[in-house]
């Protein structure tokens, strides 16, 4: 029986969380109300708190940029077609898509954190702040692009 399994692998890494992470699943709310920028910013902060890999961080950032680009593209396309623009709904859908990447990448890491007895931090304050700041910034950007 090969016993590479019974060699220590835990000692090398540090598992102490410096700041309490949010539940990745909960980031859907700021994603829907604030759009892709809000959820990407929160997702990147949460990723740092959970100590995710560089690849995971890049995936979140990439998905955020792609969702924002998609939101602008769809809004431009719809306004070119002359339809009344359901801008809020498009932003919410784009935010939810960006959230999918955050949730997929951070869920296992958060589950391990839970198994170590960790509790999630409250998202109320930071979530609301992200929705207001990033949501309005994004709305201003959309307005600037379409007008």
């Amino acid at each position: 029986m090969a016993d590479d399994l019974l060699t220590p692998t835990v000692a090398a890494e540090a598992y102490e969380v410096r700041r309490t992470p949010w539940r990745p699943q909960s980031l859907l709310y700021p994603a829907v109300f604030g759009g892709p920028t809000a959820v990407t910013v929160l997702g990147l902060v949460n990723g740092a708190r959970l100590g995710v890999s560089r690849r995971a961080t890049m995936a979140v950032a990439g998905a955020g940029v792609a969702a924002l680009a998609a939101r602008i593209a769809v809004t431009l396309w719809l306004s070119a077609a002359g339809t009344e623009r359901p801008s809020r709904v498009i932003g919410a859908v784009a935010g939810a898509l960006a959230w999918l990447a955050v949730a997929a990448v951070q869920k296992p890491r958060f589950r391990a954190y839970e198994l170590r007895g960790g509790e999630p931090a409250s998202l109320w304050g930071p979530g609301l702040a992200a929705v207001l700041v990033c949501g309005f910034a994004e709305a201003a950007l959309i307005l600037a692009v379409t007008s």
Partner: protein
Amino acid sequence: MSTSHDQLARVAHLLEVGRAEQALDELGRLPGDVATGVAAFRLRAAALTDLDRWDQVVTVARQGLAETGPDAELLGRLGLALRHEREFPLAERALLDGLALAPENSWLLCQYADLCSAVGQTDKAERLVARAAAIAPGAPTVFASRFQLAYARGDDRGAERVAQEFLAAWPAHPAALALHGHAASARGRVDAARRSFGQAVAHDPTDAGFADAAWESRVYAHPLLRPLRPLYRLGVLRTWLVAVGVIAVLNIVGLDLLAALFALLWVVYCVWSWVAPPLVRRLVRRRWRP
């Protein structure tokens, strides 16, 4: 000698029926030579494990190891307790020392797998669980570790499947019932969760964790939260996509008034999903713990 043997057997029986406090009392009454034997240390560590007194498990296990020499079970207890105390590298050291003594001990392999799951090393955990399962396929600890592994991976369906297999193999095992409850509530099956947690408490009324979970599951099975069940079953994202889809379709078709009405209903539903659970929690708590 036979009386002390009887005493230890009685303690073991008390532990089996979930009376850890009483077992500790009995252990305190043991005569000196028996009380410092390895069997007494194992039972004491097991009783303290049942009571989740992890710091004391660490102390007792270390004391036992110092006084009676290396012992796989005590090392396993030490590893388990150190994991709960968040001393992960030390926990690994203890478990590996235990496994060096008893490499084929499926319980120790599962303890090590649980540790690996908790630090996110799920591939290693999977191999450890597989090895434990090859030694003791139907053991409760193997099922529990498979559940933890699936949970750590974020695989809720897999976790539910393991819980169902566990329950099928051990229909009255409190841990099987509790894990089944967890899996059911993760998938939004509130009634199944309430039943399972209720039975887990009935089979092991002394476990605080089961009692808490049972209490929480009663909150979610409350009639006032019945409207929220589709939300729990489908998950927030899917429910929300359905709602937004309906509103968008109604808008496109031109039924603006209907769309606005539906949007209003949706907002009320969202607010209910935030306000009602804490409210019901307070209601249920008042009734349960007057």
